[in-house]
């Protein structure tokens, strides 16, 4: 039985039911932006995000019906048609599981491209072509962990991106290089400098 105040996601987990998540992280504020975790709550006009919606007694909830699966599949298709997910294995698994076809929008569908990887400090690099805008890095940089507020947003809609104030290089911001953002990034958009160099094929000596 779910504890009072539990989210649908928590209740489902304790009942052994899997609900997929992308933006959610156990230790961070849930902003519920990806909507992969949506479920059908009978009586609700829209689907509801399981990672934030609180369970209620006698609620009739479908975690895996046709309507729910269509929403998840279409979101995954649109995401994969937009962002480089080559280093996001969990998303690759979900795409396969939902039978998502990112190519349905055509080879000319706009992708989010940000130019070269940002290498502007000795600690980590930022490759925003791989960024899925899960907000985790923003959240750890702000109230969830570090209170440095170095990371925010630029643009809006499809052109939204994670950015520093006026896109300044990292050393010119309030960043203290704690590395928390790198730790929570699920897609390889943020990477330690060593890891980045190694991935480029540079021979890296032991630490």
């Amino acid at each position, binding site marked *: 039985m779910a504890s009072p105040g539990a989210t649908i996601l928590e209740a489902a987990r304790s009942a052994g039911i899997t609900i997929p998540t992308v933006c959610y992280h156990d230790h961070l504020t849930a*902003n*519920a*932006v*990806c*909507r*992969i975790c*949506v479920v059908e709550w009978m009586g609700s006009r*829209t*689907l509801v*995000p399981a990672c*934030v919606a609180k369970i209620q007694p006698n609620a009739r909830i479908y975690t895996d019906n046709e*309507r729910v699966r*269509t*929403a998840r599949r*279409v*979101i995954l298709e*649109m*995401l994969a*048609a*937009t962002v480089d997910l080559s280093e996001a294995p969990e998303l690759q698994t979900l795409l396969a599981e939902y039978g998502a076809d990112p190519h*349905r*929008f*055509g080879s000319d*569908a*706009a992708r989010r491209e940000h130019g070269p990887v940002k290498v502007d400090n000795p600690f980590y690099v930022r490759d925003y072509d791989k960024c899925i*805008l899960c907000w985790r890095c923003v959240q750890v940089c702000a109230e969830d962990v570090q209170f440095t507020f170095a990371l*925010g*947003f630029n*643009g*809006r*809609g*499809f*052109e*939204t991106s994670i950015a520093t104030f006026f896109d300044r290089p990292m050393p010119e911001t309030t960043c203290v290089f704690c590395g928390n953002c790198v730790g929570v990034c699920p897609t390889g958009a943020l990477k330690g400098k060593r890891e980045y160099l190694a991935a480029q094929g540079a021979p890296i000596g032991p630490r």
Partner: protein
Amino acid sequence: MTYQPVLTARLGKIDPASLQDYEAAGGFQALARAVELGPKAIVELLREAYLLGRGGAAFPAGIKWKAVSEAPAPKYVIANADESEPGTFKDRILMEGDPFALVEAMLIAAFAVGAEQGYIYIRGEYPQAIARVQHAVNTCYNAGYLGRNILGAGFHFDLEVRKGAGAYICGEETALFESIEGKRGFPRLKPPFPTECGLFGRPTVINNVETLLCVLPLVLRGLDWFKSIGPEKSPGPKLYCLSGRVHRPGLVEAPMGTTLRTLIYDYGGGVSGSGELGGVLLGGAAGVFVTPEHLDVSLDFAGLRTIDAVLGSGVVMVFDTSVDMKAVLRRIARFFRHESCGKCYPCQLGTQRQHEIVERLAAGRLRSGDLLALREIGQTMRDASICGLGQTASGAILSAIDRFGFDEHTGRFLRFDSNW
């Protein structure tokens, strides 16, 4: 047409900069009456009147006011004057022509729910409305209608005018709170709702300008008068923003539930252009297209639900049969792509993919699978988006495809001439 306008009665008849004019035309009588009635009775009056919000979502104002009146201070009242829904121009006309009325309505709201601070959030592209409302606020401070111990009745109220910076999303109530707090206009997750956790995390009443202005005649003329206008489930006076291909477009004040036929042919003087009605967009870009078969439906919140349409902010945009409907849809798709805030995936990604497909539709280059993708994207945005923007971003486009006889093979809308 025996209906006597109340919301627009003073427009063009008084100097909008003159408090004396306003008072001479009945101004501040509703406030005096409200103070006599007391907060509880006003909230009760609003609840019984079943005044539905005029900003788009049609939520009963009385329920919001009651919840906030019972919540602990500090609390806030806000007038949503962001008015960015394409085709909507009612709030601008009200603020430009009768700005003291908005101040008076805000005072009544604050008095009724026990708020000592209020904001009027006005669309940044409305410099005239901003100047006139700001002038009215300043004048009311000098006259003792704002500030400490108003009318000697022992209540205090400070009112501030805030300007939007050009984002449609900042009209969404929780994005509007963020904006007032100095942050980027991202909508918040709901629940919690504004009545519990609104501006600065405090209980907040937020209403559309027209909703607030309905309170003045309601307080002055009473419940029976209010209920005698319009249908039972959706009563009161209503402003319709009549635009597009009619001979006399403009702001129409009529009873809630006026029919489309009356609006277009009596108030609007009939269809211009080809003279033949093609379709009508109700509720703006966030709304739904209807066809000539729907001419006799009652334009109120409940009546329109029966034909899967919405009244929204009162937009009635008329299209004759010579209109290039594909270009209209392309414009709508571009609008949502441009205005999506980017917070949630369905709308951030869906408005882009939708726009791409509608561009192909407009160019007569639909590919196989495009229409299915358009429908699935639409359903996903409606079902899974965080806020009303994404939830409504596909409604107009899909309704046009369904209701205007879209021929997938020729790429034409049968209801519209296709000689362009």
